[in-house]
């Protein structure tokens, strides 16, 4: 129990003192995970909606595949991206290894299947209701997909949040492709791993508390946005 109270104390102290190192780590975590979710959403939302609307050979295989890829182990993704971005690898020219950009790429890959699979499910449910109307209006597949995306936006907020949660919580991918470099690629999860390995468990727990608080805050903000939207548009 003393570990937990020490951790609680460490967390409070860190937050209130505005420790600049902590601030830097928190900002980088947010930047990396939010960017990853943004990239994954830009790609995944349209694909998910189109998967719900379009019919083509191999569609069902693709759906099963994206559902399965939701369970991609982060450390495996990290390793693969590392091998791709390494100087000895095919994309070495870009010099992206051990940078925040590499972390964004790795996390975007992790989040993409989640966005596609959850969007597809919500869009498919909506499509069963909207299909007659949209086909009646002669809407193209693409326009139908976009219409669905706007109408199911409340579910999409939850989807994006699920993606963000996945990105913010993982350590395996960002550790390998980022290298946990102090001041450059150290994010909350890798900092927690480091402090744990140094045996400073209260500090690690405290950082964990800060991380959870941030994720809760992001979720609360999204919930409020959904509420406001429901009030406005029904």
């Amino acid at each position: 129990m003393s570990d937990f109270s020490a951790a609680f104390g460490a967390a409070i102290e860190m937050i209130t003192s505005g420790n600049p190192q902590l601030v830097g780590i928190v900002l980088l975590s947010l930047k990396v995970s939010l960017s990853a979710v943004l990239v994954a959403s830009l790609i995944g939302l349209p694909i998910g909606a189109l998967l719900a609307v379009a019919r083509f050979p191999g569609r069902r295989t693709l759906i099963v595949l994206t559902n399965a890829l939701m369970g991609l182990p982060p450390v495996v993704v990290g390793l693969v991206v590392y091998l791709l971005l390494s100087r000895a690898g095919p994309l070495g020219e870009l010099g992206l290894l051990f940078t925040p950009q590499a972390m964004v790429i790795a996390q975007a890959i992790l989040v993409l299947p989640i966005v596609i699979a959850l969007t597809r499910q919500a869009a498919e449910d909506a499509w069963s209701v909207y299909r007659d109307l949209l086909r009646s209006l002669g809407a193209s597949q693409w326009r139908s997909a976009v219409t669905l995306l706007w109408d199911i936006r409340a579910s999409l907020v939850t989807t994006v949040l699920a993606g963000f949660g996945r990105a913010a919580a993982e350590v395996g991918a960002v550790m390998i492709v980022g290298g946990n470099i102090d001041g450059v690629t150290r994010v909350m999860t890798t900092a927690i791993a480091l402090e744990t390995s140094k045996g400073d468990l209260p500090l690690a727990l405290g950082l964990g508390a800060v991380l959870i608080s941030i994720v809760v805050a992001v979720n609360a903000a999204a919930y409020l946005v959904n509420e406001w939207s429901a009030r406005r548009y029904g």
Partner: protein
Amino acid sequence: MGMTRRSFVRLVCDGCMALAATASLVANAADERYITVASTTSTEASGLFDFLLPKFEQKTGIEVRVVAVGTGQALDIGRRGDADVVFVHDAAAEKQFVAEGHGIDRREVMYNDFVLVGPTSDPAKVAGISDVAAAFAKIAEAKAPFVSRADRSGTHMAELRIWDAAGIDIDERKGRWYRETGSGMGAALNTAAAMDAYVLSDRGTWLSFENRRNLAILVQGDPRLFNQYGVILVNPAKHPDVKQQQAQKFIDWLVSDEGQAAIAGFRLRGEQAFFPNADGRGR
């Protein structure tokens, strides 16, 4: 199209901004003044880099980015050309690295030592023994819990050499008492603390380790526990992207009077943790 078109356009704009930001960061990265050093978790965990690097950065304006992993992985990073400098503590592996042509100009920088840490209850009765190989033999005899990093790190290699010196084929003798965690030093210490087990640790990590519980240093000072650090420039002939000029500055600084004095000045819990011993080119 009202709402839908506006939100779609907004999405596209966000996407373009994200891509532009990424592109600009990629472009900038190329001409930033920094070098990448692949080193070990134990060196980083000791806090040496937090103490040492600002001195170098202030003097030269070159930022040093340390990727801290196990020795094996650090050398692998060097082989791939993903680092400019490799700074580890496994002389045999380092020499092979140079022999393979991946590194040039290996220099000895400093040494610290390993300590045999164990529970104060000391079931194998090794406390105070001066010969660490004998201590290991007693632990194997007693089948007392022993945590091994088992990750091909410098520490792990040192541990294996001691089993060898004790005449013990550890692959044969290991049983439930021999716990291979495959982890870094800190994690191994955590495990040993939780299990009241013996573990071989570098002094630096031990000095800054907070979660000691019932553990204490039981054996130290044996010359076999001597842990030499070497720094190697990743071969620019094989890996043209290596920032040779800046990396060489770092290596030269480490072995210079100034760098060596800085290393000697680093204190952990009031004790000197690393002992500078650069004396010209590596043997």
